[in-house]
């Protein structure tokens, strides 16, 4: 392009006519050159060449116009290479691909249960499932942080520590008290049978480790008499007696009855 212009015939002629010899006799050339050289020496000796700052219009480094696009190209290529490399690293570490490939289905369901029993109650399950995937789920931070909240819920129900145990026992005691208060003779066994088969009861039994052990499990704190009442199995036999055990106020009655 540039030489197409410059080497064109009008271009050649123009250059020859304007920048060639005309008007540039030896005298003129030397005159102009002398003046320029004198100015050069003056500026140099005055230290101007070292002190004057470079402005934008003085910076004609090739990077300005011709190489900038090349550099940006290089930058683009470098960014591409970097992304591919880092992506490869991510694949190699194995954290990402498990989620991206077919394996994710088990983790969401299993993670909570796996992480729940892990601390205490059911070590066998963790043993079964913890083959190859267990490590992966633990190694991936995002996966483990998410299931934590549900984990708490699941943790409390199977192994009720303090509060839930109290709650279960209270429900048991209340239920007994009601049935006792309503019908001492009427619906004795049935009502209690229903109550005892409620989920709360089942949980209590499960927590205690057996129906016989429920009183012992709940015993101790509020009502010492409950232990007595529980011995003959609250659900079936001890209606009459257990009824008297309900509250402390009735303890007097019971004592009379015992005497009589």
């Amino acid at each position, binding site marked *: 392009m540039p030489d197409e212009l410059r*080497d064109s015939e009008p271009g050649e002629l*123009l*250059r*020859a*006519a304007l920048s060639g010899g*005309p008007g540039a006799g030896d005298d003129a050339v030397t005159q102009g050159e002398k003046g320029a050289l004198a100015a050069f020496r003056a500026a140099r000796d005055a230290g101007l060449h070292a002190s004057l700052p*470079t402005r934008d219009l003085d910076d*004609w480094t090739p990077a300005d116009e011709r190489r900038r696009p090349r550099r940006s190209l290089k930058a683009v290529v470098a960014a591409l290479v970097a992304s591919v490399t880092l992506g490869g690293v991510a694949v190699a570490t194995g954290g990402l691909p498990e989620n991206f490939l077919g394996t994710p289905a088990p983790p969401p369901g299993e993670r909570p249960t796996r992480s729940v029993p892990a601390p205490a109650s059911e070590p066998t399950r963790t043993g079964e499932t913890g083959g190859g995937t267990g490590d992966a789920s633990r190694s991936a931070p995002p996966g483990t942080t998410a299931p934590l909240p549900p984990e708490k819920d699941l943790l409390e129900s199977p192994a009720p520590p303090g509060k839930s145990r109290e709650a279960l026992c209270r429900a048991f005691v209340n239920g007994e008290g009601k049935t006792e208060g309503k019908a001492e003779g009427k619906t004795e066994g049935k009502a209690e049978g229903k109550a005892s088969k409620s989920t709360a009861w089942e949980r209590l039994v499960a927590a205690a480790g057996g129906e016989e052990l429920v009183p012992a499990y709940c015993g101790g704190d509020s009502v010492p008499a409950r232990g007595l009442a529980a011995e003959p199995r609250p659900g079936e036999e001890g209606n009459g007696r257990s009824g008297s055990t309900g509250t402390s106020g009735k303890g007097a009655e019971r004592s009379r009855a015992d005497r009589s």
Partner: protein
Amino acid sequence: MGVRGVKRSVGEGTGHAPATAHGPEQDARFGAGRDARLGAVVERARHGDEEAFAEAYRMVHPGLLGYLRGIVGEDAEDVASDAWLEIARDLGRFRGDGAGFRGWTATIARHRALDHLRRVRARPRPTRFEQDLLELPAAGDAAGEALDALSTERALALIAGLPQDQAEAVLLRVVVGLDGPSAARVLGKRPGAVRSAAHRGLRRLATQLKGRGR
């Protein structure tokens, strides 16, 4: 025959240097070589070498003068001296290679030329007769230099017939020897606009030259 001879001697003698090389091999080699040489010389001059500065002057001045002739006519010598005073003073500011030095000096020369034109327009114009008188000696010199093909006077007349943007684009590209982007930077315009202006200007010159039969 005179044309050929002049062209060859001009190509070697004026320091014209194409910045990019697509044309005839000889020109390209000369151009690249000359720009590299110019860059080295300018670098030495920036560190105080007076001889190097003189060489840079001889390499750059002819193209600069031709460009100024196209803009300010017979005042080109004076404007060029002003420009060279500024170039000599500000040489320490310059950063770049040989092609960059051509662009930088052309920018300075253009500013001086525009200042000059402003001054000239502010004062009363010379009469038509005075202008003719002033232009005559230049024509005589051109004849003396055996420029049979295209006298300086005719060349200036042709340039004067072009719109300002085309004239400047042609001069910077063809006479100073800048590449497209550098010429655009000197003119403060987009490269595409300068490119099309240079093409249109040269096409117009070519038709006028053919019309006159040279």
